[in-house]
């Protein structure tokens, strides 16, 4: 018995040669192979389906990411717009509040309105300098020593004027002073400012009921007579005078619009 033992390198060469011949035969006689084609398609079908599923998933993922990015961009834009609208709304609200306060102020003092300047409070320092900064100045007719009035009462006087702004010295300023009187009480006293404003200068043991209004008399030449500084608290006698602590009527922290009266204005509202 003859045993043929081929070397692997020779074998593969022979196989390749055979394949080449086979290929040539296929080229020369096209056609056929339909069974092979069918087999190939059948084998390939699941893999192709899997590939398509992966491709679809990837496309969906990309589309989802795209719409997510677009949605997030839209959300960011809307958030910005919302913040802008909120700011605008706040500003408009502040404007409306100021307008209301100004209208109320003018309505409260109709006789003073003709000779007064309506001003907005631009800045305030109530603890250190006890002052307000107004947005009206000499160009608008504001003069030094003009009385400044809020709806609930007097605030102070203008102590410095620029062309388009003015500074108000509040009645809570330690150097503030004004002539004051109580209705039904003879004579007048001196309202002294500071952390605890009080009226002094009345004779000892003068009877002044608590909650009595403290009114301006105009003797100092700044405040028109008859305007409210505040209300009296519990009076006491100190030495030669009766001292009456005063609760100021106007709260500078809440005031946004004030009436700056002309220095020459006289007469109560």
């Amino acid at each position, binding site marked *: 018995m003859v045993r043929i033992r081929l070397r692997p390198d020779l074998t593969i060469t022979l196989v390749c040669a055979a394949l080449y011949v086979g*290929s040539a035969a296929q080229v020369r006689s096209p056609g056929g192979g339909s069974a092979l084609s069918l087999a190939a398609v059948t084998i390939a079908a699941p893999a192709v389906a899997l*590939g398509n599923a992966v491709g*679809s998933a990837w496309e969906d993922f990309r589309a989802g990411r795209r719409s997510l990015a677009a949605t997030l961009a839209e959300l960011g834009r809307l958030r910005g717009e919302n913040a802008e609208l909120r700011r605008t709304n706040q500003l408009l609200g502040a404007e409306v509040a100021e307008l209301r306060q100004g209208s109320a102020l003018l309505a409260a003092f109709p006789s003073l309105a003709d000779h007064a300047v309506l001003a907005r409070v631009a800045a305030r320092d109530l603890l250190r300098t006890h002052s307000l900064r107004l947005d009206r100045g000499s160009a608008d007719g504001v003069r030094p020593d003009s009385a400044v009035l809020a709806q609930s009462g007097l605030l102070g006087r203008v102590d410095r004027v620029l062309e388009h702004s003015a500074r108000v010295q509040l009645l809570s300023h330690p150097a503030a002073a004004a002539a004051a009187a109580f209705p039904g009480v003879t004579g007048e006293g001196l309202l002294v400012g500071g952390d605890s404003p009080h009226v002094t200068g009345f004779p000892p043991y003068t009877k002044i009921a608590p909650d009595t209004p403290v009114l301006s008399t105009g003797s100092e030449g700044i405040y028109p007579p008859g305007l409210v500084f505040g209300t009296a608290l519990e009076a006491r006698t100190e030495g030669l005078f009766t001292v009456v602590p005063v609760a100021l009527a106007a709260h500078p922290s809440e005031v946004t619009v004030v009436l700056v009266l002309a220095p020459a204005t006289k007469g109560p509202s």
Partner: protein
Amino acid sequence: MTLAAAFLAALLLQLALTASRLWWVLAACQPLLLPVVGSARRFGPVGVAWTGLAAGIATDLLAERIIGPGGIAGAVAGAAVAVVVRRFEMEGPLYWIVGSLLAAACSETAWLLIVVTLGAKPDHLLLGAFATVAMTGAAGLLVAAAERLARAWRSPERRRRRVLRRL
């Protein structure tokens, strides 16, 4: 067994990459050449050539082309890869990248030459060949990266670090 599994996986991948919903360039990739490259670590040039022959015939069958040129081209590519890898003692990522590029280039060149000598009209020319080489090289790069990651994951240093962290 591992080679057979890799061969089967590569075959399925090669079929799947022709799916219409995937990026069309991916269809130029020949993952079946990667097991051929991988077998160069285990077999000599003749053994790798046999693997290449099988891969090439499978490609011919599935692509519904003339059966034979792909097999011969695969055998040539396998032998060339085995010779080069041994000659230059390639290891690591270079082995996969150069191996896959070389396998694709040899396979495409040999296939084109064979088809031309047979007097048949090739279904693709230089552009297709370049795309095949590029995509197969990219697949080799991916395999190299995956192998590197797997090695790093299974490395004794990592195990030691994990043990030390637990102490």
